[in-house]
């Protein structure tokens, strides 16, 4: 009997062993099959997620540490559909708080594809609205009401400009996709944006992965002086109103190193509402007229012609010229601005009375090659290389160009037929104000990264004229302003400068009723600390720059000396201070 049971037991055990072995074999086979690999890889997909970590965009400060562009937290408001219990309540609350209609939100919540887990109701929602919503959610939770369950808020950064439209033409703006447009934001977009890092984040807490520290974007410090920028913008706006002008631009620069203190243009965009861009501008070149719009600046170019003539020894300050009111160059007769003869003049008189005939004569005395050689060295027809995006380079026709004629030598000498941007002329004039050394204008003062400050060195753009020539012309321009009791003069400070009134070219020739009024000037003459360019486009109360741009220069210079702490000449000479 025992023997019989023993056999049965053995058979049962053998059967169970066989079944067990079969199960194990099958397990091993499945584990190592092709399908298992697919399942494993699918499983891995849910073991974590690739997450992109975006660095905070670098901030932008003015030269005195005032924030011009920063970041603020905004929220993406969304609903987790699997956790949603009451779409009606959510639609009502979100519609009320986010300014949406009930139907709009309800349709989004109930008609979304079934595969969707999460739905975004609105992005870039401000802190106040989200705080109110969070408070409401908490209140409902406190009374065990889960009507708003599933509602979520994801914070992220949005660019913020505390000064609104101030220096908007210099700063540019950042769109919601994080890309910078115009100005600093575009030029230094890669530096400001930093490098996003993609990381695999496992959901298993045992595999707590190291989330790398994503360094913030580089913070930039500009050469702009915020307070001076605000003053200059106010003066420009007021001037456009006073003179009935269309638009304008003013730049204030340090002639010693090319640092831009202020750069104001119109119209200006409120950077916190950058979508207004399309209603303000017809094209990108209008965004910053100081660098983007080349125009015929007229007589301000005469200072470059005179600089070239003095440098080559073609004339000296005392060289006399008998002005008969007209001169023929290349078969075309050139007249003075008033079509009158001014008789015997020295070179200071030619500048003081802005005589086209005299300057055309000087250019013919220099000769084509010399004149255009100097204009090239002054940088006309080339971009200045300023660190702002959207710079135009103007046009300087030179002999050999199909549209260059012999008369161009005479007209170009007094600024007709040559287009420049205000910044180009400012850079050219820096050679006169800075002992012959021309500086490259720039707006970046330094970069802050990883706790270190990297200052941007000044760059010279050549020496188109000798130091002696620069000093001579400096003196001539100061005397010419003083001689005519110009409205550009600044009480207490000796300044040098030149007006420019240019008729505006049209398809049918020059429009005599519309002008571009410009003024370029600097001071103090013995130690120039500021270089100012004023452009008033189409003034209507007076077409003359001596009555429009020149007094604006004076106002800007008065504010500049106050805000840059430049003592009057008498005080400086008395104490020997800068």
């Amino acid at each position: 009997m025992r023997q019989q049971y023993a056999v049965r037991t053995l058979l049962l055990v053998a059967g169970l062993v066989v079944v067990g072995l079969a199960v194990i074999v099958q397990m091993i086979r499945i584990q190592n099959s092709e399908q298992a690999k697919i399942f494993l890889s699918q499983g891995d997909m849910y073991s974590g997620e690739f997450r992109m970590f975006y660095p905070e965009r670098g901030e932008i400060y003015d030269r005195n540490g005032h924030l011009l562009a920063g970041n603020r937290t905004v929220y993406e408001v969304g609903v987790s559909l699997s956790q949603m219990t009451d779409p009606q309540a959510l639609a009502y609350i979100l519609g009320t708080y986010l300014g949406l209609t009930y139907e709009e939100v309800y349709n989004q919540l109930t008609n979304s594809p079934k595969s969707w887990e999460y739905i975004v109701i609105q992005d870039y929602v401000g802190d106040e609205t989200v705080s109110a919503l969070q408070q409401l959610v908490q209140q409902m939770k406190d009374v065990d009401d889960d009507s708003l369950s599933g509602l979520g808020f994801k914070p992220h950064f949005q660019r913020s400009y505390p000064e609104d439209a101030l220096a908007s033409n210099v700063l540019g703006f950042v769109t919601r996709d994080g890309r910078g447009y115009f100005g600093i934001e575009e030029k230094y977009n890669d530096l400001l944006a930093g490098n996003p890092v993609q990381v695999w984040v496992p959901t298993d807490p045992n595999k707590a992965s190291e989330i790398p520290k994503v360094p913030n974007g580089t913070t930039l410090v500009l050469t702009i002086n915020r307070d001076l920028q605000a003053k200059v913008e106010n003066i420009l706006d007021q001037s456009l109103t006073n003179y009935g002008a269309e638009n304008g631009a003013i730049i204030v620069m340090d002639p010693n190193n090319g640092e831009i203190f202020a750069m104001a243009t119109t119209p200006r965009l409120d950077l916190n509402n950058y979508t207004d861009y399309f209603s303000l501008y017809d094209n990108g070149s209008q965004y910053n007229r100081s660098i983007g719009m080349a125009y015929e600046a007229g007589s301000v170019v005469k200072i470059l012609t005179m600089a070239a003539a003095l440098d080559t020894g073609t004339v000296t300050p005392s060289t006399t010229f008998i002005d008969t009111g007209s001169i023929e160059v290349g078969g075309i007769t050139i007249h003075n601005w008033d079509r009158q003869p001014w008789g015997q003049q020295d070179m200071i008189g030619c500048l003081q009375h802005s005589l086209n005939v005299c300057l055309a004569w000087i250019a013919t005395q220099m000769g084509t090659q010399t004149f255009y050689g100097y204009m090239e060295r002054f940088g006309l027809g080339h971009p200045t290389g300023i660190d702002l995006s959207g710079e135009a380079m103007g046009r300087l026709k030179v002999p050999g160009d199909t549209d260059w004629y012999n008369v161009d030598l005479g007209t170009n000498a007094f600024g007709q037929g040559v287009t420049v941007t205000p910044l180009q002329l400012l850079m050219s004039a820096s050679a006169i104000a800075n002992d012959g050394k021309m500086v490259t204008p720039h707006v970046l003062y330094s970069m802050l990264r990883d706790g270190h400050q990297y200052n941007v060195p000044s760059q010279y753009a050549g020496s188109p004229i000798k130091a002696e020539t620069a000093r001579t012309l400096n003196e001539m321009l100061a005397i010419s302003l003083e001689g005519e009791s110009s409205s550009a003069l600044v009480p207490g400070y000796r300044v040098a400068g030149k007006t420019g009134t240019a008729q505006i070219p049209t398809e049918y020739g020059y429009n005599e009723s519309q002008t571009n009024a410009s003024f370029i000037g600097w001071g103090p003459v013995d130690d120039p600390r500021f270089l100012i360019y004023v452009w008033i486009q189409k003034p209507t109360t007076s077409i003359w720059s001596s009555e429009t741009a020149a007094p604006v220069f004076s106002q800007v210079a008065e504010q500049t000396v106050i805000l840059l702490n430049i003592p009057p000449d008498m005080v400086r000479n008395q104490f020997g201070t800068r």
Partner: protein
Amino acid sequence: MQAQATQIIHAYKQAPWRVQRQYVGAFLLAVIGTSMIAALYLQVTAGAARAGREIQEMRVQITAIQRANADLETQLANLTSTTEMERRALEMGYRPVKPGELDYVAVPGFVAPEPAILLAAEDVVQYSHPLPFEYTQSLIEWFDDRVKAGDY
């Protein structure tokens, strides 16, 4: 002779209850050893999990603080913007200075400050130190690594 040999074997053979006790003892030893290893493994993995969670929470806190910091900076900039400062100055009875109203005083040896270091340096960068393996590795992974390294 054979009987003598059987006697010797019987004399040295352990009693059956002794053998059983040895088996039970060995089994219990194995159970205790396994339990100890399991407990140790649990402790290590639980510690790693707790540390992982803490790190994640700290990371969230850091992000929140950075956001709050950026918000406060922007808020401060709004409160000290040119328009706001001008409005407050006018309210307090100040007015813009005119060039002729300024008095300059020469101070021997004084050099006007240049904007050399404009801002407080940013926080010294927190270089990203990778988590030590002790915080992320299970006991088995650690042992596996040691074996592969030829330590055992």
